[in-house]
């Protein structure tokens, strides 16, 4: 019963994601009465925080590289890629920092639940912006410019308009709804990436596609973890997401080697 109350409080205030983290932390310590603040750095928080911060660093690196080459080439697609990874990187660093603060209860942050909720919500919103940017960028790359951008913006507008006023009132379901939006956007990105890889047949596009596929799987698993309320599955999803960013890091490393660049193209 106490567990159910704790779960309700956690999910109401922090969203499912945080709720899972806290409830699992509590289950492992078998102390449901004082679930906040957490007295000791929790392994789940620390693990997720490290993965988020590392993933965020990779995302910012991709963003910087796209920005750098955009100055040379002036491609609109690179602008979208750079912007998207910047949003994602900032979001992941924000989430990682927040989890670190929660793990060590720096400045008794766990007592300021509004701050925790707003930070967590901001991360979710940044993710939507990031993946929308990728979807727009990819549509411009895959289709003709005008048609692609118009279709994508129109589709997003149609989806967003009727639900935006309810979005922030969803409380517990904000996380799940955001995950669904992210999954839809990522599915679009993966599909476009698949088409583009079919066109270029390069190992670089395969690495980027693998990265996005892994991130999509991670978000599906995250949604699943929220449904079944499993902290273990949630952490597993974070590892899958990290693998996706590792694939992007590998792409960056490989694309930086001039001698292998021409060999890598099939």
């Amino acid at each position, binding site marked *: 019963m106490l567990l159910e109350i704790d779960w309700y409080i956690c999910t109401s205030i922090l969203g499912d994601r945080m709720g899972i983290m806290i409830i699992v932390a509590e289950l492992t310590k078998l102390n449901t009465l004082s679930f906040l603040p957490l007295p000791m750095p929790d392994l789940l928080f620390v693990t997720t925080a490290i993965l988020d911060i590392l993933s965020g660093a990779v995302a910012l690196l991709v963003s910087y590289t796209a920005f750098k*080459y955009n100055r040379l*080439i002036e491609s609109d697609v*690179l602008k979208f890629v750079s912007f998207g990874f910047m949003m994602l990187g900032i979001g992941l660093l924000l989430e990682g920092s927040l989890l670190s603060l929660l793990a060590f209860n720096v400045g008794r942050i766990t007592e300021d639940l509004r701050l925790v909720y707003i930070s967590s919500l901001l991360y979710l919103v940044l993710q939507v912006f990031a993946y929308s940017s990728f979807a727009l960028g990819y549509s411009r*790359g895959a289709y003709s410019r005008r048609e692609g951008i118009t279709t994508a913006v129109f589709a997003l507008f149609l989806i967003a308009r009727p639900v935006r006023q309810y979005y922030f009132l969803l409380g517990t379901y904000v996380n799940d709804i955001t995950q669904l939006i992210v999954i839809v956007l990522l599915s679009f990105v993966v599909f476009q990436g698949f*088409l*583009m*890889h079919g*066109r270029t047949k390069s190992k670089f596009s395969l690495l980027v596609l693998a990265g996005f596929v892994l991130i999509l799987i991670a978000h599906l698993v995250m949604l699943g973890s929220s449904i079944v309320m499993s902290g273990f599955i949630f952490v597993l999803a974070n590892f899958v997401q990290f693998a996706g960013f590792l694939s992007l890091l590998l792409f960056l490393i490989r694309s930086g080697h001039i001698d292998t660049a021409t060999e890598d193209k099939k």
Partner: protein
Amino acid sequence: MTQPQKTRSRIKIYFDILSSVEEEGNAKLTRVLYKANLSYDRLVKYLDELIARGLLQEIHAEENRYYVITDMGKEFIREVKKAESFLSGFGLSL
């Protein structure tokens, strides 16, 4: 899905000219013309731009004109190759 034939971007044309000059060493105008696949007028225009940007050097020897790539030009080629690899990751090309 097929994509219509794209016209070469300015960067790509610079890259093609510089690559052909680098490959030749001391490159004659006719060789560059052939390898870069450009009309004479356009090639002269681009060569002037590349010289003005310090990526190419024009050498007059007897009655012949040669083009030599500068260090900055070699650096430009390296950067464009990296950019090409990066772009191909997102299904794009120069």
